[in-house]
């Protein structure tokens, strides 16, 4: 009998040990799932200091990954996410988002109304804009002197193994479609075939696909041409002033990233506090200065310096936004893109 007692004591201790390793005390937390390189660490730390809320920050590098993470995790795992336009639409359709209660956000008036009420979420019932981004071609003029005005120019054999691209199938296949005069969101198989051939033709020139930071390739001179997000290009420019930005004549891919709260989020009031904090003019200024995407916050815009305002890679010109294209939800046809992507790689 004593042995049985001993065994059960050992088992209990063991289980206690197991549990103690895993459980954390119930402090106030908010689980944020965001793009990598979007909010500087310092902003998160100062939010934590100011509110006493602990931020669990994890990242994703494509909208699809965001969707996959939110839908595969237990409901309520994430409290705040930053999906782009078309993904907001998908998530609304799948009833994955909470309605936003804008009355909980004191600073919501800071947003520029130009960016509100977009077609993917009329009336901003589920989402509010965070920043805008656009693809751009960045060229290191130390080594490349040719004129580049079109995606077609990237096919030049001189650029062998010298171009890096964003690792995002919709954006890159979209680029190939634009280059060949098609709609960026087409599901027409013939058009996609043309896009595939075009990308295969481009492939020898491709050094690497990198979703998160093709800028490193430019900065370390690993590659002299990159198709990347505008803020990344602007950051590369900070390291090397001979980097030039080109918005190709076929148009750029645009992306508007938004705050959204997944359905069933457990720490919603903390999530609202986090959104409200970021909407503050001075906080958004810090974010924009670290990651110079297109700012959509009117109150912040007046605080930003000329470095930001006169740089076309960070402060995207209105004409580019007008002539640009958003990725759209193409439903089931995404499988076509998926297969094409596997074929190119």
């Amino acid at each position: 009998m004593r042995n049985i007692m001993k065994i059960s004591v050992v088992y209990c201790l063991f289980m206690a040990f197991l549990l103690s390793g895993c459980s954390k005390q119930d402090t106030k937390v908010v689980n944020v799932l965001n793009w990598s390189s979007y909010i500087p660490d310092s902003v998160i730390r100062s939010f934590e200091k100011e509110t006493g809320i602990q931020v669990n920050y994890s990242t994703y590098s494509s909208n699809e990954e965001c969707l996959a993470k939110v839908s595969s995790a237990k409901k309520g795992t994430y409290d705040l996410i930053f999906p782009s336009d078309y993904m907001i639409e998908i998530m609304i359709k799948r009833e994955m988002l909470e309605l936003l209660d804008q009355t909980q956000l004191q600073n919501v008036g800071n947003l520029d109304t130009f960016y509100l009420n977009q077609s993917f979420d009329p009336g901003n019932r589920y989402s509010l804009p965070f920043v805008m981004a656009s693809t751009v071609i960045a060229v290191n003029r130390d080594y490349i002197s040719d004129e580049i005005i079109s995606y077609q120019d990237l096919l030049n054999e001189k650029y062998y193994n010298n171009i890096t691209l964003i690792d995002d199938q919709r954006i890159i296949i979209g680029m190939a479609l634009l280059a060949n005069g098609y709609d960026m969101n087409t599901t027409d198989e013939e058009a996609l075939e043309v896009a595939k051939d075009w990308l295969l033709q481009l492939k020898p020139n491709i050094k690497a696909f990198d979703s998160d930071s093709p800028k490193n390739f430019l900065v370390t001179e690993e590659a002299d041409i990159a198709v990347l997000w505008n803020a990344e290009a602007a950051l590369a420019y900070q390291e090397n002033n001979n980097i030039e930005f080109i918005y190709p004549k076929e148009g750029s891919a645009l992306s508007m990233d938004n705050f959204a709260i997944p359905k069933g989020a457990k720490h919603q009031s903390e999530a609202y506090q986090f959104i409200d904090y970021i909407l503050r003019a001075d906080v958004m200024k810090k974010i924009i200065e670290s990651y110079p995407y297109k700012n959509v916050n009117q109150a912040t815009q007046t605080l930003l310096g000329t470095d930001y305002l006169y740089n076309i890679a960070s402060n995207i010109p209105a004409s580019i936004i007008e002539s640009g294209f958003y990725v759209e939800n193409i439903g089931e046809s995404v499988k076509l893109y998926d297969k094409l992507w596997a074929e190119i790689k």
Partner: protein
Amino acid sequence: MNSKKLWKFFFICPVIIYVSLLIALPLIYILLISFFQSDYYGGMISTFTIQNYIDVFDQVYISVFLKSIFIAGITTFICILISYPFVLAISHKKPRTQKILMTLVMVPFLTNSLIRMYGWLVLLRKSGVINQVLMGLGVIQEPLSLMYNMIGIIIGMVYTLLPFMILPLYSSVSTVDPYLLEASSDLGASKMKTFFKIIVPQTLPGLFNGSLMVFTPALGYFFIVDILGGGKMMILGNLIKNQFLTARNWPFGAAISIVLVLITSLVIIAYRKLGGKMEDLGGA
């Protein structure tokens, strides 16, 4: 329940719970969803279909399989080439030195493999240490392309998996009877002949064991291909990862995984047919 039964219960319960919950359940579930239909955007519909398996045999995905097998095969081959002379050289040392050297082999292993891949990135890139040293010495004029291509991937794979070849090969080389080697050279056999006629046959279990432990992981190490291959190449690991984390087509990802498991099983059956023992795997 008497005390004897309770003892048995105590010793057997954990392993049964473990095997059924953490091994059998996940695999059965994956097998199950590989026959599901994927719906529009990530959901799964539990109607039976074999469409996912038909899709796997599309030319595009077959080529991914072939590429992965090719990379894993080359990696295994290079690991064998490097490991044999290495373990033979070690086995000629004193026992104490052997112990120390084998411990040293394990040291890099205790940092994370991803961190070591980052180290390779710093070494191999265009402006990396190796190119700078070589250019500084005047050996080359233009930087070499050592990564973002096949070379980078193979270096990364061989580096990461080499210890899995060295360890089993070492333990089987240390069982070779030194008198046999002496006798062989006394009888006038050349070094090559001794190696192929005596050492290789005697160390076959270790060789098979090591090959298995190098080959199968190499099929799945997506992060090496991502980092040192520049995301330009797709092996099975990337394909499965994409299906689960990007394309949201879990049933298809599950089907690829099941095919991968079948390939692995074939390798294991071959290993057993060749006389390999399961309990030698993962021993070290």
